[in-house]
């Protein structure tokens, strides 16, 4: 018994769905960021699953291309989380809450 590509798709689709649900159902900015992390992980998992089960050599690629994409996703997710949390802290200094529906102006 070995998992196939579709099994990884199932996990990835469920994670993507739950990430989107987290992003749209909560109004706290930290929840929105957590949903974004789930979505990024789902996408990276798809890349790696394709790299394992697909035929990248037939398309002129190398078998580790999918893993490289996932590594770059992790790098950019780290940068994104740091900058986004900085923005959230700054939001909290200008507005009394971090409810993403409350801020309605860009300057004082």
């Amino acid at each position, binding site marked *: *018994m*070995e*998992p*196939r590509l*579709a*099994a*990884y798709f*199932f*996990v990835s*689709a469920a*994670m993507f*769905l*739950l*990430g*989107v649900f*987290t992003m*749209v*159902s*909560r*109004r*706290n900015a*930290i*929840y929105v*960021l957590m*949903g974004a*992390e*789930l979505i990024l*992980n789902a996408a990276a998992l798809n890349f*790696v*699953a394709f790299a*394992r089960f697909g035929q990248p050599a037939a398309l002129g690629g*190398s*078998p*580790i291309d999918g*893993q*490289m994409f*996932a*590594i*770059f996703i*992790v*790098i*950019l997710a*780290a*940068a*994104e989380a*740091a*900058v986004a*949390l*900085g*923005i*959230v*802290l*700054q939001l*909290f*200094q200008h507005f*009394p*809450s*971090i*409810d993403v*529906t409350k801020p309605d102006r860009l300057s004082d």
Partner: protein
Amino acid sequence: MTSFSFLFFGGCALAGSLLVALMPKLVHSAFALVLALVGVAGLYWTLGADFLGGVQLLVYVGGITILFIYGIMLTPKDATRWSLPALLLPGVIALVPIAVMLNMAWTGLEALFLPGTRDEPVPGTAAIGEAFLTRDQYLIPFELASLVLLAALVGSVYLARRRKEV
């Protein structure tokens, strides 16, 4: 064996994501996110991506969740509840993919697993290192990624500092 570890780590990833989406408290969701990320790291290992699983553990589980927990501690705990009218639209939208996935799970669970064993995945850490430092492969993106990280470092320090009242 791969099947067992797939079920274990895939279950971790799914349970963690579900708890992130449904936990009423922000800190509980952050710890559920750890579970989901560890599950994804395990799935990388079942796919033969050893290095990527390690990167996932170091950067995501060790770094990003700590950032999130700091963010939770430094901000007020408001707007964490669902309001029922606000939940209505996402709930209706989410019903469609949930139905598709339940259908997929109901009709095709045996199609998700292949009897017998596949060829063993090749550990690719050395190949990843060479690809990062080969000019016609990933050298330029690799160097650009370090620039992006530097810019994000400086930018987030600048953004998160406490402004003096003027």
